[in-house]
């Protein structure tokens, strides 16, 4: 079970709370987590990564275990703490300015 934290606008779209739990088949990677997330909540398709290119949207970031994973390979294994459900995979809208 993977825990995913969503930003406010995506919670509204998916009609969920701040954290959702999803099951991932095989190794937990950004790609497998997002595939499972979009499969469970198809209304999120295109909001986190582009529907055509599958690239992360420029103003979306991925954090976990106090690390910025945004620029990691989408097929790199996520930290064990994320894969085990001890820590969430955080999807966040990048903040610029104040």
């Amino acid at each position, binding site marked *: 079970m993977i825990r995913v934290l969503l930003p406010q*606008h995506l919670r509204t779209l998916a009609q969920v709370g701040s954290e959702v739990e999803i099951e991932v088949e095989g190794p937990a990677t950004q790609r497998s987590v997002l595939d499972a997330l979009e499969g469970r909540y198809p*209304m999120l*398709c295109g*909001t986190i990564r*582009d529907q055509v290119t599958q690239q992360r949207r420029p103003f979306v970031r991925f954090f976990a275990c106090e690390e910025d994973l945004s620029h990691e390979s989408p097929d790199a294994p996520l930290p064990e703490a994320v894969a085990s459900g001890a820590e969430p995979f955080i999807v966040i809208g990048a903040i610029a300015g104040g």
Partner: protein
Amino acid sequence: MSQIRVLVGTRKGAFVLTSDGKRERWEVSGPHFAGWEIYHVKGSPADPNCIYASQASGWFGQIIQRSDDGGKTWHQPGTPAGEPAAPGPPKSTSNKFAYDASASALNTHQWYDGTQRSWEFKRVWHLEPSLTDPGTVYAGVEDAALFCSTDGGESWKELPGLRGHGTGPKWQPGGGGMCLHTIILDPNNPQRMYTAISAAGAFRTDDGGASWKPINRGLYSQYIPDPRAEIGHCVHHVAMHKSRPGVLFMQKHWDVMRSDDAGDNWREVSGNLPTDFGFVIDVHAHEPETIYVVPIKSDSEHFPPDGKLRVFRSRTGGNEWEPLSKGLPQRDCYVNVLRDAMAVDSLDKCGIYFGTTGGQVYASADAGESWNPIVRDLPAVLSVEVQTLASSR
């Protein structure tokens, strides 16, 4: 009694304003999609309860929303809210706008600096439902292209003949981006459609969207190397009266224009306007020679001249204009009225509506003679559409 439903898109959500035919007391519902940019909301002429909305975010991209109950509830087409999806790959394609790259001519357009740049989808500016089928809807997008859905917004396919007719590589973005913002369907000829793009110009198809041609003869734009070029004009909006689909009125960047031959030739009808820069233009519902604009001071000062918000009306199809200001602020007003933010109802007397970047939506129930704000403090208004419904709730 008839009912009026005003659909308002703003920088931070959509609002639905309703009134009876007197248009004196209004109910306001919203914000729908709070916090998102709503570029356009428009109902189907064939089924007024079927309404499409373009919901966008710089962070999370494009969402298409549809209501089947007149704007009370909404869902992403093909993805009912909260419904668990079947196992397997995601199937939602209601926000998938994939450009057709089948021909090399479709691959690049001109950037601000004159270099070529690949097309990149950014957002849907305008949704135009079919006149006859609630499940068919056109989308004008940035970077400029025309898409169509025939399944109620569940999936979208580009009509590549527009970008691919040959001038696409010469199109360039205007100040607001390179957007296809105007789609007009000919009520007498289902094969004919008009579009307008900033900053490329106006285009027409006579074969249902398969092939297109520029219709910009007569336009003069000093900000391009050849002011009379076939392509490159920053058309802000085009309007048509349904009884005369061959007559078009255009608010260009500068200049108010008119065509009497379906866009083949244009002539200027700015006449005595205090400034002929502006964004909106619309036609009276029952008087096809009566048109409305909101003059804006200039392309660098996007507010009304002298701080006075005035709609100008011509009852002669242009050239002779009269200011309409009763009920509108006549001092210290520095709002803008954006290109899709004016609409008319079809009651008698014709109602005129427009929204401002200051968050006001003004209504006139007497064809512009007098105005009242329906709401004063919405987020900046991006679009206004009106539905005239046959009976009250």
